[in-house]
């Protein structure tokens, strides 16, 4: 325990300082990464992880990931996935994720940050040796944003390892770190105390108890410093300073009850019974489930007894007796209720999950007495982890059950699509084939024309560019020439001259218009290309449509069946784990309530005796004050002290 406990204690400070460490979404390039941050910021770590895992999986599966939008955030994403896993209490995976960054070929600053995060995980898992080993991997440049946190963590690790002198050295250097206001001062005080330098520790805790800050965490740690300092000074019999220190603890903070109780005992130890009543009377009016309040119910009448106001003391003892009896009834009802399984049901109430202060709200549920003491149980880190795990398991169970019903819907959807598309596909395939042959034809034509035009650029062929009419004329002239033959009659010669004339005119036209026609032919070729492109696009569209149709119902049976099986198996495991985790929670809660019961039993017995004693003393005092002046003897202060009430906070 001595090793484990301080690390738990110090983790409180560390967690508060590092809680807001997730990446921000400014200058966002990847919307899905932003969506993961959106979930994580609300504490929905399952959704955040699922989103980011998917994104990272896709990114790492790409041939050229540098063109993916996640590339802009890949460093942050790799870290965030580890952070999300840590927040989702998946330390093993978080460690693996960060180790992967650490082992990768990354910038020294990134590697140092990874080492820091890994060290933080080890520290949170009570593995200080491993944490120190990870911290020792930090070398060279440390990012400014984490420089102080690295030192703070190192100091905490030293303390967990029982090396307070080393921790003192590091913490002394951190006293001006703004992000650690309050925490560094407090931890330095504790380190000095562990190192056996009690006077220095007292002075340091005094400084920590005066730190000015409006931050909630810093205020809480300041209160804690004052509470510990007050207790130490009380131990050293410096009651006045002890009271002053305890008086600095805020009345609304988490340490207020203990501070009020101890302030009262400090005054009592200094003989100031009247002044002790001030904090105790405040405390006695508070929530009676708190052990400090329960003690104050006995302590206040004890002080009245010391002041010889026995009537008032008797009344207050009577009130305490009632309160203890009522509390005992409530504790018994709680134990009974837990045994009936109502505790676990109450923890899973849906409306509570919507409330940030759900633990406090649980106390107000009239039908669930077992939850009344949850606040005290929640102070234990182990119980918190167990409870969080139980709630996480319930969340997993709900998801798995919902997925099981989804599979049936998917099957229906796929069947409907099959019924719709199957009859249509033969027709689509026929269209597809026709279009395919048309495209092939056009493409061949285009290729042929293109080749011919390319050839004409080097070897002009005007005849290739003749129009249909001109080709007919040319062929007609060839035919006439064949008919005329080699005859040399004057009529024939006249006709031959006319044919030659016409051919000459035709040739003239073809030659003179050659360049113009060549340009025009190229224009037509390009137009053909447009037609082919349109046909190709239609072709691709048809392919896509067909593929989409097919993909909408083909190939799902195997993955759906596999997933259904995996979901079923996971659900079984979750149910089993929930039962075991729930049983553990119930046992712990009942054990804690039994401890309370024993304490209340003791208080009740003391109150019973004290009531009788106080009435007796009040009666004797009244008799002493009668006119006949008869004296019955002095009241001895020690006789009025309740037998088992221990000053300064008797809860264990």
């Amino acid at each position, binding site marked *: 325990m001595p090793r484990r406990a301080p690390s738990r204690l110090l983790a*409180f400070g560390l967690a508060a300082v590092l809680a807001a460490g997730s990446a921000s979404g400014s200058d966002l390039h990847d*919307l899905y990464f932003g969506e993961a*941050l959106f979930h994580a910021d609300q504490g929905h770590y399952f959704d955040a992880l*699922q989103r980011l895992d998917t994104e990272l999986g896709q990114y790492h599966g790409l041939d050229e990931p540098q063109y993916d939008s996640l590339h802009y955030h890949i460093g942050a994403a790799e870290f965030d996935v580890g952070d999300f896993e840590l927040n989702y209490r998946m330390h093993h995976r978080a460690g693996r994720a960060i180790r992967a960054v650490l082992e990768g070929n990354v910038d020294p600053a990134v590697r140092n940050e990874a080492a820091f995060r890994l060290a933080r995980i080890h520290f949170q898992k009570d593995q200080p040796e491993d944490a120190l080993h990870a911290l020792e991997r930090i070398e060279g440049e440390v990012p400014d944003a984490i420089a102080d946190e690295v030192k703070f963590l190192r100091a905490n690790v030293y303390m967990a390892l029982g090396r307070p002198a080393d921790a003192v050295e590091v913490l002394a250097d951190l006293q001006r770190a703004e992000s650690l206001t309050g925490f560094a001062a407090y931890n330095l005080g504790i380190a000095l105390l562990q190192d056996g330098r009690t006077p220095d520790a007292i002075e340091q805790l005094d400084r920590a108890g005066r730190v000015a800050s409006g931050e909630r965490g810093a205020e809480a740690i300041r209160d804690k410093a004052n509470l510990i300092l007050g207790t130490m000074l009380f131990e050293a019999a410096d009651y006045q300073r002890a009271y002053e220190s305890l008086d600095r603890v805020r009345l609304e903070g988490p340490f207020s009850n203990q501070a009020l109780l101890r302030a009262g005992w400090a005054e009592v130890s200094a003989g100031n019974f009247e002044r002790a009543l001030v904090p105790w009377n405040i405390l006695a009016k508070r929530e009676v489930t708190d052990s400090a309040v329960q003690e104050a119910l006995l302590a206040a009448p004890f002080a009245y007894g010391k002041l010889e106001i026995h009537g008032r003391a008797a009344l207050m003892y009577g009130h305490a007796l009632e309160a203890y009896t009522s509390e005992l009834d409530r504790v018994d009802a709680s134990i009974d209720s837990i045994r009936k399984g109502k505790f676990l049901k109450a923890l899973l109430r849906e409306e509570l999950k919507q409330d940030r202060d759900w633990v406090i709200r649980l106390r107000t549920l009239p039908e669930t007495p077992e939850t009344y003491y949850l606040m005290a149980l929640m*102070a234990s880190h182990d119980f918190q982890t167990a409870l969080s795990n139980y709630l996480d398991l319930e969340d997993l169970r709900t998801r798995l059950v919902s997925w099981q019903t989804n599979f049936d819907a998917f099957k229906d959807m796929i069947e409907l699509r099959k019924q719709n598309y199957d009859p249509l596909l033969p027709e689509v395939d026929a269209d597809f084939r026709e279009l395919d042959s048309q495209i092939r034809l056009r493409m061949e034509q285009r290729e042929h024309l293109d080749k011919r035009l390319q050839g004409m650029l080097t070897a002009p062929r005007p005849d290739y560019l003749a129009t249909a009419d001109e080709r007919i004329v040319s062929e007609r002239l060839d035919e006439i020439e064949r008919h005329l033959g080699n005859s040399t009659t004057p009529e024939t010669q006249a006709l031959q001259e006319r044919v030659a004339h016409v051919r000459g005119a035709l040739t003239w036209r073809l030659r003179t218009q050659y360049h113009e026609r060549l340009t025009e032919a190229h224009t037509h070729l390009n137009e053909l290309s447009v037609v082919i492109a349109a046909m190709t696009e239609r072709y691709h569209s048809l392919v896509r449509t067909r593929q989409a149709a097919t993909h909408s119902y083909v190939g799902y049976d195997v993955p759906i069946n596999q997933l259904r099986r995996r979901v079923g198996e996971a659900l079984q*495991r979750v149910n089993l784990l929930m039962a075991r985790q729930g049983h553990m929670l119930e046992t712990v809660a009942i054990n804690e309530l039994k401890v309370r019961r024993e304490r209340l039993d003791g208080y009740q017995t003391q109150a019973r005796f004290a009531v009788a004693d106080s009435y007796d003393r009040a009666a004797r005092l009244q008799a002493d004050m009668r006119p006949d002046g008869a004296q019955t003897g002095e009241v001895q202060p020690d006789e009025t002290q309740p037998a088992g009430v221990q000053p*300064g906070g008797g809860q264990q």
Partner: protein
Amino acid sequence: MLRTFRTVVLTVVIWTCCGPSWALDADREQMKGLDEQVQEVKSDVLGISAELSRLEEKLLYPSNTQVAVFIALAEGDAMRLDAVQVQIDGQLVAHYIYSFKELDALKHGGVQRIYAGNVTTGEHKIDVSVTGKLQGGADYNQAGSFAFQKGVEPKLVGLTLAGPDSGRPAIEIGDW
């Protein structure tokens, strides 16, 4: 007795931080074992979820028709966003009212996927209306209409919302 008790108190305060120390070593070991198993099952369920998500996307939002609309807030904007309404081609596809936690997450740079659905390839119109409050408590209502082109790949439409003090358009559409 007082002195003995004081020593106990000091030790208790320093080492246990005011909480009930209920867990014995055996309990702690059992708890640790359970914690390991819970981590394993979480990992398995996350794996199933990722696969299921891919299957759902393929089945429900194939890439050639997939459209997703995202909402982001301009950085540092003080406007309190109450609700957003989105119409695609005149059809209401999303009407979302924001909780405090969601608004906080948006202000911290998170991006909300407000809608995922299907549209045909080609030109489409998206209408966005925003309701909120300004820092002074005045109502803030804005509306915008934008065109977007849907190709064969999934279409991601990002809408960045801003108040009047940011110096940016109230509703800005971005392509991803």
